[in-house]
């Protein structure tokens, strides 16, 4: 079954692509904030990641504890093929709709 991606889900997946092996709640949140300019909560990121994991788009593994986190462990995420395909599809649809409109979109108020 094909599933579409919500906007925030796209953000999260794109952040995973950008971060590569360094993707976990805090870095994903930071990426979305710096790139998309959106204020989001860490727990919202996790809620979304969990949903994506259920759909089979991402997978996670538990990392080692580090002292700057008070000895707590990290949960790292990475993109799975299914997620990559969905992201590509979303990008294709979006760019298909926007091709040739760049100037017009910029001019919109």
């Amino acid at each position: 079954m094909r599933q579409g991606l919500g906007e925030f889900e796209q953000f999260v997946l794109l952040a995973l692509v950008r971060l590569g092996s360094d993707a976990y709640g805090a870095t994903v949140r930071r990426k979305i904030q710096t790139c998309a300019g959106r204020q989001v909560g860490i727990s919202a990121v996790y809620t979304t990641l969990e949903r994506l994991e259920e759909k089979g788009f991402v997978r996670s593994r538990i990392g080692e504890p580090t002292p700057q986190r008070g000895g707590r462990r990290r949960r790292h995420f990475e993109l799975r093929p299914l997620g990559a395909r969905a992201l590509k599809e979303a990008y294709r649809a979006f760019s298909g709709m926007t091709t040739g409109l760049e100037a017009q979109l910029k001019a919109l108020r």
Partner: protein
Amino acid sequence: MKRLLLRLIAWAAPAADREWIAGDTLEELGHLEATRGAAAARRWLRGEAWRVLRLAIGCRLRGLAVLAAGLRRAPGLGPEGSPRRALRVLRSSPAIAAAVVASVALGVGANAAIYSLFDQFLWRPLPVPEPHRLVNVRSPGERRGSVSTDEAGGSDFVFSHPLFRDIERGAHLLSGVAGHRAAFVNIGFQGEAVPGTAVFVSGGYFPVLGLHAGHGRLLSSADDRAAGAGSAAVLSFRYWQRRFEGRRSVLGEALLVNKQPFTIVGVAPEGFSGTTMRGDPAVFVPITMYETVLRYGSLEDRLNHWLYVFGRLEPGATREAAGAALEPAYQAILREVEAPLQHGLSDEAMAAFESRRLVLDDGAWGQSTFRERARPPLLVLFGATGLVLLIACANVANLLLARGVGLSGELAVRASLGASRGRLVARLLVEAVALAGLGGLLGLAVARWTLDLFRALPGLRLEGAELQPSAFLFCSALALGAGILAGLFPAVEASRADVVAALRGVSRQGGGRAAARRFRGALVTAQLAVSLTLLGPAMLLSRSLAKLDAVDLGLSPDGVVTFGLGPSRNGYGPKEAIEVVGRVVDELRAHPGVESVGVAQFPVLSGGAWTNNLSIEGFEGTDEEPRAAANRIGAGFFETVRIPLRAGRDFTPGDSLGAPKVAIVDETFARRFGLWPDVLGSRISLGAGGELDIEIVGLAADARLQRPRDVPSPHTFFPYRQDANMGNAYVYARGRLSTAALIRAVPEIVARVDSNLPVENLRTLDSWIRETTRAEHAAATLAFSFAALATTLAALGLYGVLAYSVAQRRREIGVRMALGADAARVRGLVLGQVARMALAGGAIGCAAALAAGRLVESVLFGLRPHDPLSLLGAAALLGGVALIAGLVPARRACRVEPASALRAE
């Protein structure tokens, strides 16, 4: 603030994601602090907490939201239901509104504080994965030989080290077994030694708990291979932060524990501070170093019980099954290894010993006597604050009833314009709930103050108490409940407004309907009863405290100064320790301001005790084998604390290692064990069945040396100079000078012997003794605080009802006075009302106070729970307060002018 927000975020996160979300938040906070400054980081954290809270409340209170939505759409409520509108009452009757808000705030706040304590100290499991699979191992039954316990549990919980290893090997259905024991040590780092707590742990300790190092590594089975081996030390996270400022470079550095060298290999995870509640360990070291570091205890001796044991159930295993699986191996060890060591047991006692079992208790909360000790007083406190809340609710109901009568005109107009009854009830109820909600908010502040009070009472030992985030929810739920409970009857009652009568303005005269009047009277009666229920036990506690303070200890602390010395913590061996303590004593004696000096290995009146079982010449033991408290003391001890010697001699410096062993016993000892009166020259020995190698050379008078409330028990004293394991000692000095001058002189005198030997706990013996009743002082203070709060609220309620009823009965009183009633009669009318309520309330309250007295029975000293004097005192106090509350309205009633009262009609 920062910590609270972090905790809030962790709390609001789903349990499964808590670890990473909390970790991410902490990490992000550090990142922001480093890149954009502390202020920006704080702002972000606040925003994050707010986002999380909205999310969490959205999820957790979805049920409530559905309810609220249903209520909004409920027929008849309409705009009347808007809380904003309801809060107009604040403007229209500010006095009533303020009284309602204050009552709810006091009642709810006190409860939220206690709830918070429960949450923090009794309900929260250890911060380890799957805490509910942890089990504490216990073996009920008396232990022979040497038993030493600490805050982790009583004597049923301690095992010898060899027995622990047996259990470790024989464990089925347990994925691991671990042992631990805390001790007070000196911790040296780069030339500076600081006292602190070390936890000696077996290799399984951290693996069984399922913990990962915050930094470096934790201890494992590789670290506890053989006695005397193992030099790795793991710092607790807090100690790492506190003493080493969280520097990673401490890994690999040397650490001295009682001058024994260790290497720091890691840091325990944040939030983990051992398995003993409220323990604050500095460092974890292998249990194989126990004997080496402490110079007492034994890793080999099966008659030396000191080690606490816990384990982790395999997934799916039950405690019962795991306990049963341990049993065969344990029974075999008992029969074959342990039983032959138990000398001199009768057959019956031996059978009891061999049928001893292992019991596994739920270990999710770690091992701690604190939970057991704290639960009953906290429950009693919860009961007390619950009663205070009930009184507050009664006040609120009373005030709202009065307001309802005041509103009757307005309500009648609305009713005549077609407002349904349900709509009127809803409006009044929403008003009550809105006021209660405000009270709940203020209640949070009250809860904070209440916790401040708890922390300030040292006897409670609740130093770390903090308001828990969960208390916020509790507070709002309680306020909501209080609003509905207190608002329902007044709302229904006020909505009954008789349209015609109200519009004609006659309803003001009756003081409300008869049912409402009776209800208000009943409320006040109940308030008085509840107040007495709290005052009774408060009286009992304070009378018991007075008796405790007046008890004859059998010694005289006036003018005595005491301090501790820990030569073994400074690397002295037993013989040198005896030397050093002896030299300090000599120096003190030589001081012109000092009259006499004594030494005791265990400080007197510290609540703890060292007990031994003994063999006594001529005493034919029944199964109850002779046991006595023991202490090691020096020459001059009895003289210094003024315990009279009844016969024989005091110890002398000549009673040293190598000299014939001697002892002094007290009168209770002599009588209990059949040595009276010819005790001198009798022989005893420590432990059962050995050679009677100790001669009794002195007989001391009885004194209460453990706690002032203890009944006299047998005591034995041995010379500290004959202690082959001498480690630490307390010194007692009686001065010709003032104690203040003596306290100033002591450090210098000790420094003359060894300038590196710290003087610990230097104070007067008097203040030391006062400390022993600190818990009782705290209990009495708290009980009186809550009883006073309850009584004040009840007095306010009484005053309100009377003042209101006098105002309502103005016309009746006017008529009576016009017909010739004098002031005394009118006053009698009002005070009669007071007396009826006070008598009824007092009678019910007396019965309830008697029942409540039983709850505090266990802490009473020299009093029965039904002590008539206490109950009388409480009743008299309440009667006095009721009289004062009634006098003002009574005087107002006397001043009613018949003419004007009648004209007002």
